[in-house]
Structures are given as C-alpha cells and as structure tokens.
C-alpha cells in the first residue's frame, strides 16, 4: 500500500504562489500582471507560480476566527487576506519546516482552501500551542482516568470545525459506526450523523475532548472505507512531542503533553493506519518550550515524534524568490500600503529582510 501511495504522491517542492483572499473592493475589470483571475486553487498550473490570487470571501470569513493577529490585521488593511501556497497537495504525511516568518501558516491556509474546494473533510488545528500555553480550564477527564481535559478550547475548536466543514458535513452524510457511552444517560447510538455528534460535543462541554476523539476515529474509519477524504492540517505539531506544557494538574505541577487527552487523539490522526487522506503538519521553534536551538524537524520533533511520523515528506518552506519579492512589493503598492520606494530602496529592503516575508512586512510597516 505504501508504494501505491508513494506513486500517487505529487510534490513540487519549494515554490509557491502568493495568494490573497476575499476582495470586494478589487475591481474585476482589469487584472494587473501579478494577480490571477482564477480563484480555484485546484486549477492552478505552472503559469500561476509567484503570482497572487484571491480566495472567495466566504472561506475567509470562516477561517477568520482562527487566524493569527497579524494576518487578521493584514486582511483588514488590504481588505483581503495575504497567504502562501504550495503547488500540489500530497497524499501522504508531510512535514513543513522553515525559519520564523517564512509563511508556513499561510501556506497551510492555502491548503485548507484547496481541501475545501476539493470536498475534503478538513481537520485544521490552527496553533497547537494555544491549547497548552493558555489553558483556561484544565479538569480531570471523565472518560479516561489520569488524563486532563481542556473543555473550553475543545468546544471552541469543534465549533470552528463545524463552521469550516459546513458543506462537507451536509453533503457527505457521515454516520457513526459504533455506540459511544458518555454517561449513564447520554449515549450516542451507532448510525447517528457526525454533525449531531459534533453538536453534542459543543453543547456538552464536559465531553468535548471525548467527542473530538470520537470524531477523529470516525473520520479515519470513514476515509479508510472510502466514504470521504480527510485532510489533517496541524500547525506547530511539535508542541505534542515536547516534554512540557503550561497546563497544571491538581497538584499544581506542569504536565507533559501525553497526559492531556487530545494529544493521543491527534497523534493517532497522523498515524499510518488509515488511508485516503493527507496530513500536513508544520514544526516550529516557537511551538514548544524546551527545544529552541534549531529549525529542523529531526530536532524539533524529538526521537519519539520523528519515529511516529516517519516516513514523511520534509518540505522546506523558503524565503521569497526574487520574482515573489517583486510581486509582493507590487501588491503592496497596488493596495496603497507603500508607494514611493525607488529601485534602490527595494534593493535595500531585499537585503535588510533577506526576502523573509514576515520581516519584509515588518520593514514595510512604517514606510510609504
């Protein structure tokens, strides 16, 4: 089976198209050279590389609640969302790495768009560290002994999943395959629809983490059976494999991620016992507390995490190429963010930022 998967995998490494989302103000009549009129990422080809395309506003609106602050700000400034993208989707586990501000999160956003257009069921975990770093309420799990639940974030995430997979949930008609007993009175029977299960998780805060576990299991089973295709997208995956989190247990000591109930759920979602789907993960220095020295996945994932994911496709997200750099500056000029920058100034920006997207954005902030 692995061989067939490898043969199906199509990967163009490195280069991306620069995309933006949701424009109402942009006139459709004349399209500048750096834009693409086609907004469907499935139909992009070689000619679309290092050019900008727009995502329809409904997808942006659904993604909006879980984007980073900086991205939200950009969306407001440009009246659209700036984003980065890989050329093709991979039918395998893959793992992005790259230095800070290079566009890992934004390229994931584009993959989500691709998944939504292709009718994948998208399991997008925006930034794992937010669960572990700012735990609002950590309580003992009612289902699994000696584990800790994060019900508030879990409920929030379920709402988000329901929101982005609205179309998939209504069209795919997914059913539970076994009976889940939450408590003496509350039972989810087999054959109930998946959206009902998610709705139950949203309403019964206490069992939200259990519901996440059930949903992931059901999706794995459904996609193995060929009923749907699942796209697992996790940003900052190495938070799961680090040795410590900010969550405290009843003894007021910090617990490792293994003791939190959702960890095992998401680790199993990227496991190799299911097919007909894809998992795209990113690793980032900032996502964990203990490993901060290198950007490479071997180090960031640790031995255990690496063995769990192996074999995966490592993808290095790189800084802008010269073409992309010119395109993005042209785009900023088009959106009135910068204006009077001469060729010398552009060269200076290029050298100062090393064509790093985030640094370029930061440098362009006070300029005009």
């Amino acid at each position, binding site marked *: 089976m692995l061989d067939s998967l490898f043969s199906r995998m199509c990967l163009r490494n490195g280069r991306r198209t620069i995309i933006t989302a949701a424009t109402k103000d942009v006139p459709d009549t004349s399209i500048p050279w750096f834009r693409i009129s086609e907004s469907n990422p499935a139909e992009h080809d070689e000619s679309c590389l290092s050019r900008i395309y727009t995502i329809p506003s409904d997808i942006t609106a659904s993604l909006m609640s879980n984007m980073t602050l900086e991205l939200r700000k950009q969306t*407001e*400034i440009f009246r659209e969302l700036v984003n980065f993208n890989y050329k093709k989707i991979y039918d395998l586990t893959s793992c992005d790495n790259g230095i800070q501000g290079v566009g890992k999160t934004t390229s994931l956003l584009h993959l989500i768009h691709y998944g939504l257009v292709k009718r994948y069921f998208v399991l997008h975990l925006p930034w794992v560290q937010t669960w572990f770093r700012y735990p609002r309420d950590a309580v003992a799990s009612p289902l699994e002994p000696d584990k800790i639940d994060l019900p508030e974030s879990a409920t929030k995430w379920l709402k988000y999943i329901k929101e982005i997979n609205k179309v998939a949930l209504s069209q795919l008609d997914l059913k539970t395959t076994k009976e889940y007993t939450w408590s003496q009175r509350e039972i989810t029977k087999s054959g109930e629809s998946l959206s009902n299960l998610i709705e139950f998780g949203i309403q019964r805060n206490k069992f939200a983490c259990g519901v996440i576990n059930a949903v992931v299991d059901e999706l794995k089973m459904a996609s193995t059976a060929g009923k749907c295709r699942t796209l697992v997208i996790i940003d900052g995956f190495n938070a799961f494999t680090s040795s410590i989190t900010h969550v405290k247990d009843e003894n007021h000591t910090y617990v490792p991620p293994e003791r939190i109930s959702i960890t095992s759920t998401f680790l199993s979602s990227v496991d190799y016992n299911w097919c007909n789907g894809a998992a795209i993960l990113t690793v980032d220095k900032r996502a964990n507390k203990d490993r901060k020295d290198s950007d490479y996945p071997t180090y960031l994932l640790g031995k255990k995490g690496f063995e769990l994911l192996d074999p995966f496709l490592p993808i290095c997200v790189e800084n802008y190429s010269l073409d992309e750099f010119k395109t993005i500056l042209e785009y900023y000029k088009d959106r009135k*963010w910068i*204006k009077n920058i001469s060729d*010398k*100034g552009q060269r200076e920006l290029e050298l100062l930022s090393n064509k790093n997207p985030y640094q370029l954005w930061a440098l362009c*902030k*006070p*300029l*005009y």
Partner: protein
Amino acid sequence: MFVGRKFNSLILSNLRCNLENSFQFYSVFPPNYIKPIYKKGEQEALYQEETALKQFSHLPVKPAKTNNTCSEFHDELIRKFTNYIMRKGNKKMARKILDETFENIKIKKLNEYYNTSPEYRENIILDPKVIFYQAVENCTPVLELQKISRGGIAYQVPIPMNENRAQFLSMNWIISTAQNKGNAEKLSDVLAKDIIDAANNQGRVIKKKYDMHKQCEANRAYAHYRWL
C-alpha cells in the same frame, strides 16, 4: 561657588575658542571641523556646483555618526523625533513606538480612503511622513513666555524664539500630550491620533499652541521688558 561660576562664564568660554591652549574640549573635534554630508543626493548636488565643492575642499570634516545613513528611508526630522521619544537611552523602544505610530497612521488613513467615495479619494494623503511634517509645522509656535525680573518683580514677557527651539517645542508637545493620556491606551495609538489631528489643524496640541499665543497676547504690555 561664585568662583566656579565666574570660571565658567569668563575663562572657560575663552578657552574653548582659543585653540592654542591644550585644554580638553567637550567635543573631540575642534570647532573648525565641519559637519559631514552623508546623504548621497546632497553629495551629488555638491558635485554639480563647482564653487560649492571648492568651499569644502580643504576643510576638515567630522566623521559621520552611527545613525547617519544614506538610506532613502532615513529622515532627519524623524530621527530627531525618535530621540525626543526616547527615555533612558532606550532607542530601540523609541524606534518601535514611532514605527507603530506610522503604521497606525497608515491604517487609519487607508480606512478613511476606502470609506470615502471614489471621486474624493485622490485628495486623501496616505503618506505618514507627509502627515507628520504637516503636523510638526502646524504645531510650531511663534512666541513663548519668559520670566524676566525688572525692579524685583518677575514678569512673563512674550519673546520670539529661534527656529530650532520652536521645532523642538512643537515635537515635544506632541509627545507630552500623548503621554498625558496615561497607560490605558498604547502610546503609538495616541500618537497616531494626535499627529493626524494636528495635521488637520485641530486637536489638543494645536489648542496648546493657541493657548500659549493667547497668553502672549494678554501679556503684550510687558513686551518692552525684553530690551528695557
């Protein structure tokens, strides 16, 4: 104490001008050293005129400071404003505040740009630097009050000031009024608001300037104490 003051006023000033004495000056460079011209544009302009170049050809020049760059993003007035914002030598923080301020100005102006109808959009200035210059110019006072004692009574005498002092006051007022707002809002947000207001000739800083002018107008009767 008295001796010290006399030394400062009479002897030290004499020494500083007198180059033959081997005394230590405040600056490493004697006063006949001229300031460096570090902007590329200015240098090229000098090369265009031969007479101007001849004037500088045999003069000793001070070395450029570390913050003097020929980058096109460098601006003298903005550099000065950064230094006025700076507290306890924390220039990194000052620069960050000013960068955020300019970003906020741009965001506010862009919002205004998109909210107006397309015919009037061209009139809106989006450049934060232009807005900043306009704000500083609008806040620049003409007169200030100075205490002068005549016959044992201290009078508040209106006095015109030089350009440098006026510019300093204008920029410092912008900063101090923003800081008066307290910690509830970020300094960069308040500064952005104040600068945009001042550029439109309204707001608290402009009011401060008018108040001062009004006081000078009221104390017009004492104006002759300046020279009498």
